[in-house]
C-alpha cells in the first residue's frame, strides 16, 4: 500500500459531556466546594487509515464507539481532539461551506431505514434533493435520468418513485437509502449497521447490492457492524473496537484465521455457528465497564484472561506486527 490513504483518522478523541449546568456540577466534599465534570468517553485515541478501493469493517459490541467514529468521520459531530483527513486535507475543523465538496464524495447509509427516510417525501423527492443540491447546473431532464438510473441500479422499480417510504418494506427502504447515497456518485461510503434492522433473507439481498455497487463504481467502504459473519464476507480489513479504543486491525482472512487480541478471540468464539456445540466459547469475566469511568491501563483488563499487573497500569499502544496492528501487552510480551 504505497498509495497515500484516502482517509486517515489520527489520535481521535470524542467525549460527550453528561454533567448538567454550572450549579449541578458543584458538590461539597470534605468541607470544600468541588466542581465535578463527567463525560462519556466514546472514543479515546483511535488511529485509522482507509485506503482507496478497500472495505474496512469496524466491529465491536454496543457502546464501543463505532457509530460515533462513523459520525465524526462524516463531520456530523466534531471530534474533541485529533484530526480527520480526506485526501490529505483536514476535514474535521473546516467551515461547513468548505466541507460541501467532501460531502459529495463521502456519503453515509444509516442503520434504520424506517427513521432515515423522510416520511413526507416521495422516493423521487428524496433522491432528487441531493442530486440538485450537489449539482446545481443539471437540467430537469438530466436529474430525471439520474434518478431513474440510480433507482434501477438498486433494484427499485422507477415507476414507484412517486410513492412514500411507508409503502415500502424494510429491505426496499434500505435500497432507497442506498440509492440516495449513490445518487451523487460518491467515492467513499460510510455504512453504519446497514443491514442489522433487516431479516436474514433480505440481509443477503442488501449485502449483494452493496457488493455490486462496490464493483461497478469502485467504491471504498467503511462498514460499521456488530455482525462478524457479515464482516468475514464483506470486509478486506477489519478493525475491532472495545470501549472506544482499537484492539486489533488486520486483513479479514488473517483476523478470522488467527485472532491475536484476547478480546477478538472471545468475540470470534462467541458467534453462534451452525453445527457446533455452544460450550466451547471463551468465557469472559464480568461486564463491559461504563465509558464514563474508564478503567486504568488497558480498558479490557477487567475482563481479560491474560491480564497482569502491567495491563492494569499502562495503556497498550497499537503496534504493527507484519500486517496486523494489535494493542495488547500480552501479545507484545509474547505471553500469547
Amino acid at each position, binding site marked *: 500500500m504505497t498509495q497515500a490513504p484516502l482517509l486517515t483518522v489520527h489520535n481521535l478523541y470524542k467525549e460527550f459531556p453528561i454533567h448538567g449546568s454550572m450549579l449541578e456540577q458543584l458538590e461539597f466534599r470534605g468541607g470544600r466546594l468541588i466542581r465535578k465534570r463527567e463525560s462519556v468517553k466514546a472514543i479515546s485515541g483511535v488511529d485509522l487509515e482507509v485506503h482507496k478501493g478497500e472495505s474496512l469493517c469496524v466491529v465491536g459490541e454496543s457502546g464501543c464507539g463505532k457509530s460515533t467514529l462513523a459520525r465524526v468521520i462524516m463531520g456530523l459531530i466534531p471530534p474533541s481532539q485529533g484530526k480527520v483527513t480526506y485526501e490529505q486535507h483536514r476535514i474535521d475543523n473546516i467551515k461547513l461551506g468548505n466541507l460541501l465538496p467532501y460531502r459529495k464524495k463521502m456519503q453515509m447509509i444509516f442503520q434504520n431505514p424506517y427513521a432515515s427516510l423522510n416520511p413526507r417525501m416521495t422516493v423521487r423527492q428524496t433522491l432528487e434533493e441531493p442530486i440538485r443540491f450537489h449539482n446545481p447546473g443539471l437540467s430537469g431532464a438530466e436529474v430525471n435520468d439520474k434518478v431513474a438510473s440510480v433507482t434501477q441500479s438498486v433494484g427499485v422499480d422507477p415507476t414507484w418513485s412517486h410513492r412514500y417510504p411507508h409503502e415500502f418494506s424494510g429491505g426496499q427502504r434500505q435500497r432507497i437509502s442506498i440509492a440516495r447515497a449513490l445518487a451523487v456518485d460518491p467515492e467513499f461510503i460510510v455504512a453504519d449497521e446497514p443491514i442489522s434492522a433487516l431479516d*436474514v433473507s433480505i440481509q443477503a439481498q442488501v449485502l*449483494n447490492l452493496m457488493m455490486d455497487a462496490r464493483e461497478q463504481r469502485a467504491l471504498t467502504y467503511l462498514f460499521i457492524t456488530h455482525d462478524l459473519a457479515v464482516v468475514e464476507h*464483506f470486509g478486506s480489513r477489519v478493525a475491532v473496537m472495545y470501549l472506544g479504543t482499537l484492539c486489533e486491525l488486520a486483513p479479514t482472512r488473517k483476523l478470522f484465521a488467527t485472532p491475536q487480541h484476547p478480546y477478538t478471540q472471545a468475540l470470534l468464539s*462467541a458467534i*453462534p455457528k451452525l453445527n457446533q456445540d*455452544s*460450550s466451547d466459547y471463551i468465557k469472559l469475566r464480568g461486564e463491559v465497564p461504563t465509558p464514563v469511568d474508564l478503567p486504568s491501563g488497558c480498558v479490557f483488563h477487567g475482563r481479560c484472561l491474560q491480564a497482569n499487573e502491567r495491563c492494569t497500569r499502562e495503556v497498550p499502544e497499537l503496534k504493527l506486527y507484519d500486517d496486523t496492528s494489535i494493542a495488547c501487552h500480552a501479545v507484545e510480551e509474547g505471553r500469547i
Partner: protein
Amino acid sequence: MSLLEVKNLEVRFAMRKQELVALREVSFSLEKGERLGIVGESGAGKSVAAFSILNLISKPGYISAGEIIFEKRDLTRLSQVEMSKIRGNRISMIFQDPMMTLNPVLTIGTQMTETLHAHQTISKEEAKQRAIESLAQVHIPSPATRFDQYPHELSGGMRQRVVIAIALITRPPLIIADEPTTALDVTIQAEIMDLLMVLCQSSGVGLILITHDLGVISQMTERAIVMYAGRIMEEGDTTEIITNACHPYTHGLIGALPQRTAPGQRLNQIEGVMPALASIPEGCAFNPRCPLVSDVCRTTRPGYTSIGSTRVACHNFDAGNS
C-alpha cells in the same frame, strides 16, 4: 404423553374489512425436557404461536380452531382465571427486551417474590430466600444486594439473567423464550444461551426457543420448526434440518447466511419478500419466491409429507414426486 401438544392450531385476526389468518394448521408436540426451536423471519407467526400457547392473543386476534394440550388440559378452553394459574407457574415466558419486561419502579426482589406469592402460599422470608437462591442460580454476583436494587442499576445482560431467574423461580416444566438474546451483544448472548441451556438440562425444563438466528437454533435445540407466513414449512431434528434441509425456503434461509458462501462472493439471496397477512398467495405461501415452483404450487396448498424424522409442506416432496 407429551408435555405439550399443539393440534391444528389456527389463529385469526378479525379486522374491519376481512379476517386475517395469522396461524394455519400449526401442529407440534414437545416432550418433557425437550428443547424446541421456532425459526422464521419477522411476520412468520412465530411469536403469535408462542403467545397463543399462553392464551395471550389479544383482540382482534383469537384462536379460531385447534387444541393446545398441556398437562392433560386443553388450554384453549380454560377461563382467564384458570389460565393465570398456569402462566408464570407451569409455563413461564422470557421476552426479548429485559428493560420492557421488568417493572422499572419495583425492586428486583419485589418482582421475584411477587411471582412466588401469586402461585404459592409461602412466607415472606422463605420467598426472599428462594429469590436469592434463584438469582445465585443464574450467576448474578452478590445476589442479596441485587435483591434490593432496581432494574436500571443492572446492565442488559444482568437484567436478562433476572428475567430468567423469575421465569425459573416457580420451577415450571415449560419455558417459552421469545428472542431472549436479540437485544444483547454477542459475548453476552453466548453467556445467556449457555446459562439457559444448562438450567434447562439440569432441571429437566422443556424449552421453546423463538428466534430468527439459525446459529442459535442449531446450538440450543434438539428439534426445530421453520415457519413462513403463518404456517410450518418444515419440522424435524435440528441437525438434520441444518445439514439436510428439505423445504426450498429452509434451503434459501440457510444458504443466505454469509458463512455459506466464500468471502467476497455474492450471497445466495431469496428473491422477493415475505407476503403480508392480507395478501398471502394462493397455494403454497412461498410459491412466488420459490426456485422450484410448479403449477400445482400456485393452486393447491401443500400437505405434510414425512421424510425420515422431518415433516415438510412442499409439493416437491409429495408421494412419488421427490
